């Protein structure tokens, strides 16, 4: 069973529709602190604002549930804001110049794309492709596969050799995906990226969640 974290306004509907189409058994988790027994993988989808999302996660003790899953070596897939929430800090806060703490499970930080990329028409909206990826679930990727991005902030990785990243194929490239131990983060929306995206979701379940036993 795949656990899909639902902290309120994070649009789990699209992810659930995709999992249903792929025949992957799943259950919605709306509060922690523990995950039910028998969970083989966790998806943390995300649409929204970092600070709003962190407050929601913490109020429902979902942060404890996710950290517990990581400790138990259950594979985690963070999607879009979800992959950002797993990082250490973000500047997407309600106060000017203030930083918000993330779940701190991945050595990376989240920042406004415009702070670093000056020629970029931000937010990053639309279909983009990525440089060849040496990350487990991307092994089935075909050249030219494009994925749907819709985000205003980017992940900036720390210099940690255990953190593998994949970037978009642009002059001002941004992190499109990462892998850190048993955590995969996807900046784009696989559930909206049609065939290439659905293939990734399937591979996460089959290769990481099922075969890891």
């Amino acid at each position: 069973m795949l656990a899909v974290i639902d902290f309120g306004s994070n649009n789990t509907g699209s992810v659930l529709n995709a999992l249903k189409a792929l025949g992957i058994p799943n259950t919605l988790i709306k509060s922690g602190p523990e995950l039910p027994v028998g969970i083989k993988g966790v998806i943390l989808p995300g649409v929204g604002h970092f600070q709003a999302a962190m407050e929601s996660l913490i109020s429902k003790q979902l942060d404890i549930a996710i950290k517990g899953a990581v400790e138990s070596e259950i594979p985690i897939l963070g999607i879009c804001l979800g992959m950002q929430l797993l990082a250490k800090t973000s500047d997407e806060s309600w106060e000017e110049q203030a930083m918000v703490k993330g779940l701190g499970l991945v050595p990376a930080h989240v920042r406004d794309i415009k702070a670093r990329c000056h020629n970029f028409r931000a937010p990053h909206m639309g279909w983009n492709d990525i440089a060849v990826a040496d990350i487990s679930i991307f092994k089935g990727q075909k050249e030219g596969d494009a994925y749907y991005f819709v985000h205003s902030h980017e992940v900036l990785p720390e210099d940690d050799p255990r953190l593998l990243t994949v970037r978009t194929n642009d002059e001002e490239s941004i992190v499109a995906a990462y892998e850190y131990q048993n955590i995969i983060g996807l900046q784009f929306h696989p559930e909206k990226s049609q065939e290439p995206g659905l293939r990734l979701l399937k591979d996460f379940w089959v290769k990481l969640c099922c075969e890891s036993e």
Partner: protein
Amino acid sequence: MLRKRVIPLIAIDGFSVIKTENFSVRRNLGSPVTVVNTYNTRNVDELILIDLDASKRAQMISPALVKHISKHCFMPLTVGGGVNSLEGFEALLTAGADKITINKSAYENPDLIRKAAMKFGKQCVVVSVDLIRGIDGQLKLYSQGEILEEDVWEWLENVHQLGAGEILIQSVDCDGTLAGPDFSLIKELAEKVSLPIIYSGGIGSLSDAVSALKEDISGLGITSLFQFSKVTPSDVKHEAWNNNIAVRL
């Protein structure tokens, strides 16, 4: 490389798909679900679905309709029509929309842009702006049948500062005419607006689409060409690709 998007725009009157001409004359085109399903099989980049009469009914586009559509449609979906509150944003995002577009309510309550961006993130806030040229050819803001006093470029900058993530521009003069887009408007937008821009209005042929996509816009909204001719989104993208424009095939 970030691809330019070819986006069918579907307007409904609450129940049926309609197509306007210059934002007035209407033709009824049937069930929204049927129309969306056609696009679903055509691997489109994104869809925009707007309920044109929602404000008049003092309602919002139906979340139930959005939920029904998003169950079968695995493509990015922007919806709008009468959205004037954070609860509205939340209901539509929960129903399966990826982005919400607001138009009239942005004028009535610009702070909604800021609040929605703070709660849901600016990437899901699309501000839709309808533009018309006055007798002297000057660009003006157009809303609910009236020309507004405010300066177009000041409004667009204001909307940007408030937290919009994307701008959807519709040309009232070109709407439904299939007579070609307003190229000087497109160029001026590309130069003056730094947010992602989707332009819509007047695309009547493959060559119109290619010329528009060559400008620095992020997406091209097309309606009449897809609804009244045999041209498909895929035809437009192949033609664009053959003209060295980065699109997703």
